[in-house]
């Protein structure tokens, strides 16, 4: 759903589609100007400095972009020493060989390549549990096990390319740049893998110019949204993370949600609800800012990929919000969990297939993704800590899956009918419901220090005036 903008505003906001600008951006002065405009935008972000180096290099030699971005293998995490890069290089190269020679793999591995990939990772965890507490073998194994969860989904995309046959004629440099990316610090593969990035790669100067201009646009948005987020979060001044107040009257409009849940602040009912909605906006802005930085860098390097966040607060259905809020995380869940489950149960009625696939993705896959982020707890066998940390997330993922499934069913029923026009009362009502749903389930997703599940449940009940003691 989009609103029609007045012509002048639309021309300004869609500058990256203006033909004259695209033509200018193909010239040497144009390319220099694009980089000169991108530089301060990137420099405002801590991780943007390294990305700026990549953008400059690729702007000089766009056809060598994969080679230049592969330098990220040696610099993606400055704190990593060279030998750790070599350690992770082993699994990279092994996965690449498996993808390139996919047809030669045993039939069971070809049928379930992701299962074998993750099985190998869990076998490593199990191996570590059997090792003595110290020693060089443990050092290497633990280093690898700590790094793997960050890279496992990227390796998974590489194996997908193998299964589709698109990796057969590629070299390692066709994959290294996204396996160990310079353009993102997210464990979620922004831009996905070889197949998706190849489709979005610029093949001529005009496409490159369009991609770079589109990259500038999202970087500008990143700065705008970051500024707005700082203002809403009260982080622009010395009293960071205190309540958001009306700048005119000074009245408190919202408290940080984690402080309300932990009981640091008590608030009247209206303020609790406004805090929920402010938190939702804050989370959306935070995800948008990070995603725009990563996508902007990729686009400036000639990969005109889709945005990670695209107007989720204007979504009029739960599934549409989920599509727009954190697109590449959603794609991980869809490609690694939803579709394999959906096609694995081909004989079932479609609605049942959708149910199983949705829960496989939004519940099981979502939980599993976050379990892997706690690799150190797994390695140290601190399963009690793991359970405590992730139990609230169980509720969040269950509610998310249920909501998305119901939304998909309603979407199916609405197919063939005209959608409610943007701005209408029906549309506003749907958007309000979407905001409310995601704001509420975030109660079990927000990070709150030293707080048990009961505190989150109590807070939820208190929203409806129920005092659960």
């Amino acid at each position, binding site marked *: 759903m989009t609103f029609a903008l007045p012509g002048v505003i639309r021309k300004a906001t869609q500058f990256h589609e203006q033909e004259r600008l695209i033509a200018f951006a193909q010239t040497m002065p144009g390319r220099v100007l694009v980089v000169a405009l991108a530089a301060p935008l990137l420099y405002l972000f801590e991780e943007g400095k390294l990305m700026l180096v990549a953008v400059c290099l690729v702007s000089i030699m766009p056809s060598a972009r994969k080679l230049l971005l592969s330098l990220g293998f040696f610099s993606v995490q400055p704190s990593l020493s060279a030998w750790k890069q070599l350690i992770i290089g082993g699994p990279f190269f092994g996965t690449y060989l498996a993808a390139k020679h996919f047809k030669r793999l045993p039939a069971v591995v070809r*049928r379930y390549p992701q299962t074998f990939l993750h099985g190998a990772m869990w076998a490593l965890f199990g191996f570590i549990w059997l090792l003595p507490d110290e020693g060089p073998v443990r050092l290497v194994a633990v280093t690898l096990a700590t790094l793997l969860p960050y890279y496992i989904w990227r390796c998974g995309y590489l194996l*997908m390319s193998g*299964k*589709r046959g698109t990796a057969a004629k590629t070299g390692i440099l066709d994959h290294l740049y996204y396996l160990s990316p310079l353009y993102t610090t997210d464990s979620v593969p922004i831009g996905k893998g070889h*197949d*998706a990035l190849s*489709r979005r790669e610029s093949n001529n100067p005009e496409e490159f110019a369009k991609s770079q201009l589109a990259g500038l646009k999202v970087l500008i948005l990143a700065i705008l949204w970051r500024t707005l987020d700082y203002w809403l979060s009260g982080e622009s001044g010395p009293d960071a993370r205190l309540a958001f107040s009306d700048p005119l009257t000074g009245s408190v409009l919202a408290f940080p949600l984690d402080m309300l849940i932990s009981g640091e602040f008590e608030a009247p009912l209206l303020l609790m609800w406004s805090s929920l909605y402010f938190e939702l906006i804050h989370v959306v802005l935070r995800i948008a800012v990070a995603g725009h930085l990563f996508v902007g860098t990729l686009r400036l390097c000639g990969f005109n990929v*889709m945005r990670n966040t695209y107007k989720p607060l204007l979504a009029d259905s739960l*599934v*549409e919000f989920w*599509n727009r809020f954190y697109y590449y995380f959603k*794609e991980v869940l*869809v*490609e690694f969990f939803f*579709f*394999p489950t*959906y*096609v*694995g149960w*081909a004989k079932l009625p*479609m609605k049942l*297939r*959708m149910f199983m696939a949705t829960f496989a993705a939004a519940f099981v896959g979502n939980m599993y993704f976050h379990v892997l982020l706690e690799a150190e707890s797994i390695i140290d066998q601190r399963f009690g800590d793991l359970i405590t940390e992730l139990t609230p997330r169980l509720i969040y993922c269950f509610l998310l899956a249920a909501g998305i499934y119901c939304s*998909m069913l309603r*979407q*199916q029923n609405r*197919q*063939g*009918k*005209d*959608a409610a026009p943007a701005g209408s009362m029906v549309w506003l009502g749907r958007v309000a419901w979407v905001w409310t749903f995601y704001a509420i389930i975030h109660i079990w997703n927000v990070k709150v220090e030293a707080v048990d599940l009961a505190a989150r449940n109590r807070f939820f009940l208190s929203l409806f005036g129920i005092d659960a003691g």
Partner: protein
Amino acid sequence: MSRAEHRETLLGFLKTIQRPGQPIEEADEGLNLINAGLADSLAILQIVSYLEETYGVDFAERGVDPDELSSIGGILDVIEQSSQ
């Protein structure tokens, strides 16, 4: 059947799942139907089911590539590959 014949059959199916009022028969083969607003994200599931039932495509074997199934050209490629 030729690619053109497959395209006509496919368009007949896509019209049943597309967003109303959108000229899907004019869509370029390379156009992403979802990004262009011609179909919603649920369409991919229905396209998978359609290909399974009509052409016997085994997606458990070949995997699902959402980008490939988002365009008319990509879907036709899958149909042609399955009939080889």
